[in-house]
């Protein structure tokens, strides 16, 4: 009995907390992806690079003497116009063509290629380390958790809640959902659809940037950091159901717990194939993912 409690306390609990803190960050990424897909029907292949851009902006701002806490606000705000311009200049150009699914995917993929190489050019190919803004660990029931991870979990939960409220409980959110549901009808009822599209895309990019800032102190910052992370985010989005916010949150938590706990038993190398296997199984059972599209909850 004593051994079991020890195992829970010292082996499982830390892993669960690790899983939750990574899960929250993955959910922030997945939220952006899923909202953009739910509204615009666009798979943003460059999402990982925007996440990396957020991290690099934070690194540069810190080097310029800006405090980390200010970065948490400044970086997402800086990302918004970037997302807006990308949507206007790239996505809108091919939006009315027949195979826009593939075209927008290709465009964002090309953008990702350019961005990744640009990071290498500007910041160099090496890994940049970042000071942890909150040091120390908290003592919770005799278990020690790094303060920063607890902070990431808390702020992530707040952002997820705020996103939910904005989309489901505000007038702007109603416009977004209306535009996702029926573009023509929303437009004829006075919703500025084109602007809603750009703003939503910008919002998703902002979330990716925020995830980049939050995770930069935990992982380090390097040019291909987005590629490594985007697969997790895509897995979460696909399992949860493209366009579903609830799905992204639930799938994000569950999958990251699976990964965290599985890595106690199998080599961490194999946890990614495991998650991928889960995704394939879910797709075979429910090709549209666990939950429906944006607007249906």
């Amino acid at each position: 009995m004593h051994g079991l409690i020890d195992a829970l306390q010292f082996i499982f609990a830390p892993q669960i907390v690790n899983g939750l803190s990574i899960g929250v960050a993955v959910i922030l990424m997945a939220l952006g992806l899923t909202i953009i897909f739910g509204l615009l029907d666009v798979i943003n292949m460059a999402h990982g690079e925007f996440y990396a851009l957020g991290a690099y902006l934070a690194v540069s701002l810190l080097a310029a003497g800006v405090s980390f806490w200010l970065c948490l606000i400044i970086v997402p705000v800086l990302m918004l116009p970037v997302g807006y311009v990308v949507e206007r200049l790239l996505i809108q150009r091919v939006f009315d063509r027949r195979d826009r699914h593939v075209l927008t995917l290709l465009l964002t993929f090309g953008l990702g290629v350019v961005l990744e190489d640009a990071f290498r050019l500007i910041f160099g190919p090496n890994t940049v380390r970042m000071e942890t803004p909150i040091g120390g660990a908290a003592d919770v029931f005799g278990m020690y958790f790094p303060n920063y991870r607890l902070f990431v979990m808390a702020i992530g939960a707040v952002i997820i809640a705020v996103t939910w409220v904005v989309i489901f409980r505000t007038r702007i959110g109603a416009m977004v959902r209306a535009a996702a549901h029926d573009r023509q009808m929303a437009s004829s009822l006075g919703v500025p659809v084109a602007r809603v599209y750009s703003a939503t895309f910008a919002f998703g990019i902002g979330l990716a940037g925020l995830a980049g800032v939050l995770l930069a102190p935990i992982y380090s910052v390097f040019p291909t950091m987005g590629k490594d992370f985007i697969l997790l985010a895509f897995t979460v989005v696909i399992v949860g159901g493209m366009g579903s916010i609830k799905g992204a949150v639930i799938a994000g938590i569950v999958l990251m717990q699976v990964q965290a706990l599985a890595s106690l038993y199998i080599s961490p190398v194999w946890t990614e194939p495991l998650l991928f296997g889960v995704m394939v199984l879910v797709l075979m059972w429910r090709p549209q993912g666990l939950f429906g599209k944006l607007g249906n909850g």
Partner: protein
Amino acid sequence: MADAGAVIAAVRHSEHARHHSLTGFALAFIVLGLLFAAVAAWRGDVFFFRLATEALIFGGLALSVDVLLGYTGMLSLGQALFFGLGAYVSALVLKNVLPSFWLAMAVTLAVATLAGFVAAVISTRARGVYFALITFGLAQVVAKVVFNTPSLGASDGIIGIPVITIDLVAFDVDTASAAAFFLFCLAFVMALYFLCAYLARTPAGRVLAAIRSNEDRVPFLGYPVGLVKVLAFVLAADVAALSGALYPMLRGFVSPELLYFEVSGNAVITVIIGGMGTLIGPLYGSVLIVGLKSVIGSYTTHHLIVIGTLFVFAVIFFPQGLVGYFKPPLERRLAARRAAVRA
């Protein structure tokens, strides 16, 4: 029903023109390849021979992407999986079993068909962007596993693959000879091209085109969509793997980078720039991209910025690609010539 007859005749006519113009591009490609070989051999060159051979090999990979994307409308973001698989299998056979070209190719074909079938069962159930993401994920996962498997050389890959002699009945080709191996790869990749072009014109190939046009409608006409998609996927996997199998013969090593997303992504870029849905376009595209990389590479290591930007512009302003852009004038000229012959 006279109208239906007229429509069929018109469709036949336009298909004929299309086929002839594409064959024209293919023949021109061979002629250009031979011209290049003549000039390069006269100059006693090795570097450009090797570079051109690499362009052919990656052209084969792009060809496989076009079989899926251009004909069936399935965007594969993980074709490097099969390319790398072919390269690794070929390397292992040549190094550890027997330095025989035909054995390496046979084993590659068998393994790729099997792997392609498994991957097809997983991925072709999904459509559109889901398919793209699943292929992306599959390749990414396999690349990670190979990268971490010591018996496959992990991050170092496999080095020291022997130079081999390819036994063609009438004569032998030594892979150490840059010129001979280039000519062999030209013949090999063009054979893959003509095979794909032929298969695209068979009834099954027409079903592929029908799936691209309207996937929901095809089953009502009585065609097994799922089966045909699996076949197309396996064909693409084989083409990619056979092209990949040439890689260790050219470079003498394989590394996990061959499985990375950069390779898959490059193949997609190549297809779009060369001309999607033309099959020959990807080969022209590959020559262009590999050449461009080499030229830019002599100034800066950041060729991806240039190529990525070029790609984005191509998608927006030039979606028909190189061959797609020059095809209509050629078709018109061929049609005019036929009309003149008839008159």
